[in-house]
């Protein structure tokens, strides 16, 4: 199946784009396979992130340095991936996916971790977190599975795609890591949605998902239930699990319109705000820079999303489009869930704020995702 689909696609692509690359001379950007506006926006976001992190980490330049190094690694990975042909990614996606699933099963059997969750697989010399691999590879795999056939996908293809999504989602949920499984599931579902699944199926799925919510409740771990309960009524346990959300709302609310000033946020500087440099970093921004700072950040995120979606819609082959669309919307899911959680309109789910929160893997995988977008976008004219 794989071979045949590639052949068809190669043929059609060369047909369709045969004249486009002759129209314009290759620019610097197409030569480096990068996208200028997106790169500038991402660099702006990184700089903003380091600026807030300095304050959120109690003015520890060590944190800022380590974060900057990670961003550097992430950007290098992004540039490297941008050079890779999407054909290569498409070809390898199913195999990496299979490996990822095996590793996830390995985590469940031999994994290590902290606070009751097993997320890592300890190999001699280093530790890996297979859920991060799956995060990158799942949209590629689902897109690979759908884009080879004419779209919109048939019911059979949809079912296959849903199995591909459900498998890692279920495994990661068992770790348990609700946030990541949510992100992974949605990244797969986005591929399906962009592929042109009929609206009536979409609404049907939404309806049955709503019906399944009580089932989900039954499978949730106690601490996850606790989080939901706390979300519904944070005052019920103000010193326990409600503490985080009360303190973050206080930080945000006390920031006001223009904020208390950089390094002047009492909630964050005096440690009332938990996890101020990781998941709750937006509260630091909101406290110190006020509504202005938050609006600037949300504006920046919106621009990145807009640019990403625009780039995706410029892509001529289905595989690339689906992958790019999914990556951009997954980026959005991180933003929405994180800010929603910190501001108290969503339950506490441990998701970092993209390129703002301190933490290694998420920065690198996110930038790798943007690398994929750039790769697909700039390789559109290349005929193999």
């Amino acid at each position: 199946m794989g071979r045949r689909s590639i052949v068809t696609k190669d043929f059609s692509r060369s047909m369709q784009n045969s004249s486009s690359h002759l129209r314009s001379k290759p620019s610097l950007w197409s030569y480096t396979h990068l996208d200028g506006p997106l790169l500038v926006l991402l660099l702006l976001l990184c700089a903003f992130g380091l600026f807030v992190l300095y304050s959120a980490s109690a003015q520890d330049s060590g944190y800022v340095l380590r974060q900057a190094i990670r961003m550097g690694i992430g950007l290098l990975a992004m540039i490297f991936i941008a050079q890779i042909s999407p054909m290569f990614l498409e070809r390898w996606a199913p195999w990496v996916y299979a490996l990822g699933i095996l590793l996830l099963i390995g985590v469940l059997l031999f994994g290590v971790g902290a606070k009751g969750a097993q997320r890592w697989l300890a190999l001699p010399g280093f530790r890996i977190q297979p859920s991060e691999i799956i995060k990158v590879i799942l949209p590629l795999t689902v897109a690979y599975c759908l884009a080879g056939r004419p779209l919109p996908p048939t019911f059979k293809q949809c079912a296959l795609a849903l199995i591909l999504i459900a498998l890692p989602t279920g495994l990661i949920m068992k770790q348990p890591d609700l946030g990541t499984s949510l992100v992974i599931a949605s990244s797969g579902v986005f591929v399906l949605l962009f592929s042109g699944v009929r609206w009536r199926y979409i609404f049907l799925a939404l309806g049955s998902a709503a019906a399944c919510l009580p089932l989900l409740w039954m499978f949730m771990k106690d601490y996850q239930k606790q989080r939901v309960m706390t979300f519904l009524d944070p005052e019920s346990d103000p010193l326990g699990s409600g503490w985080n959300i009360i303190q973050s709302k206080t930080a945000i609310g006390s920031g006001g319109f223009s904020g208390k000033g950089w390094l002047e946020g009492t909630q964050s500087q005096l440690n009332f705000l938990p996890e101020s440099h990781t998941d709750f970093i937006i509260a630091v921004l909101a406290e110190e820079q006020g509504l202005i700072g938050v609006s600037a950040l949300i504006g920046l995120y919106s621009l990145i999303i807009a640019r990403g979606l625009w780039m995706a819609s410029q892509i001529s082959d289905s595989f690339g489009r689906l992958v790019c669309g999914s990556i951009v919307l997954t980026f959005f899911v991180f933003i929405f869930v994180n800010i929603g959680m910190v501001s108290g309109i969503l339950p506490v789910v441990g998701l970092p704020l993209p390129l703002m929160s301190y933490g290694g893997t998420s920065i690198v995988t996110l930038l790798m995702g943007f690398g994929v977008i750039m790769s697909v976008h700039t390789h559109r004219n290349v005929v193999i």
Partner: protein
Amino acid sequence: MSGYARFKDHPEERRTFQLRAVIAFLLVLVAMSALLSRMYFLQVLENERYSSISDKNRIQLKPEKPTRGLIFDRSGVLIADNKPSYNVTILKEEMDGNLDQIVAQVGEIIEISKRDLERFNKRLKRRRRPYESVLLRSRLSVEEIAKLSVNYHRLPGVRVEADLIRVYPYGETLVHAMGYVGRINEKELKNVDERNYSATNYIGKLGIEKYYEQELHGTVGMRKVETNARGRVMRVLENIEPIPGKDIQLSIDLPLQQITEKLLVGEKASVVAIDPQTGGILALVSTPGYDPNLFVTGISNKDYSALRESPDLPLFNRALRGGYPPGSTIKAISALAAIDSGSVPETHTVFDPGFYIIADDRYKRKYRDWKRGGHGTVGINLALAQSCDVWFYDAAHKTGVDNISYYMDMFGLGKVTSLDMPEAIPALLPTKSWKKRRYKQAWYPGDSLNLSIGQGYLVATPLQLATSAMLLANRGVWKQPKLLMGYRDVDEQGNVSLTQPDMQGRNPVPENIQLKNPKHWDVVIDGMVAVVHGKRGTARKLGKESPYIMAGKTGTAQVVGIKQGERYDKSKLKKKFQDHALFIAFAPLDDPKIAIAVVVENGGGGSSTAAPIAKKVMDAYLLGVDPEQQEWGGEVL
């Protein structure tokens, strides 16, 4: 559709994607606006509410304890000091639930008694602010501090804190005069302004420390501090310094107190000496005493039960709470009542055959004189000098209980007249109505007889007896007995000034005693002078070669009743059944500087035991004579 092979329709697929991308972007914009409006709600509409929560979060008021006022004696000798002491405290919040384990670890390093643990657990249960440490053990030695600090890293939340604690350098000598402080307990906290005591660990438990607690304590200070979520102070925003407690100066004369204490060594006895011109107490001794320093940080069970179970009752403040039949020391007042009420003339004489029988008594009950053979014909002066019971029996029978208790009441018997001795008891002054209430019995004529010689129902404390001596010395002018001389201030040049306290709301001073004929004072005081300086005075031994003239009255109070027809034989009685020896006096006669009451439990006779002690105390005060240099006879008169 099925049945036909489908081909990829690229433009169509791309259109589908673009449509959905636009829809997705619109949804993203809606979601972003939702987030922004949530932020707007929190940051603009609810800003005020969260700002105040945030301020409450970070700003805390930390109370700072004031330094307790010092106590000085009348010449400025420091008699209650504050010294640093080191305590080990526990901060529960830093222990992550390992409290018991860590306390046990501390117990392996330094000694923690069961009682310390008991008290620690009690304190732990009390309401307290978060991050307020709880005392585990006080008075660490230097060695213990060192041992603890070596192990600090293993003991999160364990701290060694310095605190000022009360130290009484003269220990036992002043305990009954001054009282002591101890750790404040929950009940006491309820009776004080809790805010003012929010940082205080000690409170006056007894005596002066209790009575002047408010002044000695001072006013709590407040530091408005910014703290982090773990309660650590990051910045001081505002500082209201605590106002230290007032230093107070007592009228106690420390050397006199020490001399008096030495004179009473080995006795269960009490001496109260008052300056009649001010009412200031010069010495207030009750022996045996105990070391108040034991009580400051909490006395051990062993020490406490030893004190409590001692047959000599060291915890008992005899000077203020010891109720004794005053015996013949009361006769000065009985005599005054008899002549000033007009019941008998001041020239009244009685023939004393050694006993007295009430004229209309059917049973012809004999009221004995202390002297078996009697004193012969006796007037008021000789009656006082010789302590002739029969003269008083006769006078009392004619005076009646109402008059006697009226006069005794004016002298402060049966009530608390002193200012600042919270433990003082009113003791008992019997009246007709009291007897009716108490015993449902009529007042018999014999009761009046007993009353007039200080036996029977009448009970007085050494403080009350000293007060009566002071009133005789002052000829009825009341000066309220008190320990306080004033609040002590030292200015920059080192000049000491004393300010008088505001007496409002405190125990009022009784009205001065107005006699119908003021000359009656002289009659009675002459009799008291004759006790010491008269040829036949019961305490004439004291008067010999005395450079000043003193007026006094001996007393011997029975502990066990002597049946009709029996004799009191001192040698046959065990010490604890021997009579109490009493003596009241003042001197010098023309310008009284000291009035004194001495009570020696089971001391035998007033003239033999109590009077010499009083004389030595007076010599020490008036002449500056150290009694250790002199030998005084204690022979029976």
